[in-house]
């Protein structure tokens, strides 16, 4: 009984320390997230990658402009006049796989682009995120592209 009683303060101390640790870690993560998004943001509204071979553009909107910090991914056709175009094939469909979550289908938005929204809760702040985009022209797979460098 005496032993059980004497262990209570120790357990309480450990619990407080763990609680403080979690709070500090959360603060550090929040700071890291904020700093990362500030750094990415600048004056930019999006991070872009152009695939000239087929003539399309992938865009990830600046998460700093989104209160939920979700990642909005869009794909659009660049038309026939883009430089170094090899085969002018417009992207008709795309799938996006983020970490181990089920694949998202990009769907047409009001501007005629393909779009998907990745909830911020799907992204890790500690480990590297994987975001793989597969772009199709009808039944043909155009590219499978890793988006690690674009706001992830």
């Amino acid at each position, binding site marked *: 009984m005496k032993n059980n009683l004497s262990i209570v303060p120790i357990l309480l101390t450990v619990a407080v320390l763990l609680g403080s640790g979690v709070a500090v870690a959360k603060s550090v993560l929040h700071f890291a997230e904020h700093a990362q998004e500030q750094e990415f943001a600048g004056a930019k509204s999006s991070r872009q*990658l152009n695939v000239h071979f087929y003539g399309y553009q992938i865009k990830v909107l600046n998460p700093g402009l989104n209160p939920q910090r979700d990642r909005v991914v869009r794909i659009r056709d660049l038309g026939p006049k883009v430089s170094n175009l*090899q085969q002018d094939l417009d992207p008709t469909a795309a799938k996006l796989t983020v970490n181990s979550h089920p694949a998202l289908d990009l769907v047409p938005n009001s501007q005629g682009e393909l779009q998907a929204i990745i909830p911020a809760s799907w992204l890790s702040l500690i480990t590297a995120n994987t975001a793989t985009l597969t772009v199709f022209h009808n039944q043909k797979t155009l590219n499978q592209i890793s988006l690690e460098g674009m706001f992830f």
Partner: protein
Amino acid sequence: MLKRLKISLFLLVATALAACNATIVETDCMKVVATKVEKDGWLVQISAISIEVKDGCNKVKAARYKSYREKNGKPGYQLDPQPSDELVDQKEAEVDEDTSTLNITNVSNSNPNTGRADSWQLEIDHEGGGSSTFSGNF
């Protein structure tokens, strides 16, 4: 316990601040990786852009990297239409024999003489002809 907590926090912060590798683009035939990316405010410095060709795909003969200021609103570095994009820096890597890996070293978005770039372009020449071009913004 406190010591472990401090070590964990140190590792967390160190991981967040350390130079890292970033995949610029990966297709079914190649992977382009920026190695040791360091950011200090707007300045981006990259130890090397590494182009790795996957098995069964055409090898790489040469690669050209350009950093520039986008002026005409058209994707990629272009002199036409006006106003022309402004070249900040360019680097080229060529090999005598076709290879599966090619590196362009010491890449940055800034040049002491020409200023700061907001965009980049990477053009990769393949064995047997043909090229792949990617571009984007910093």
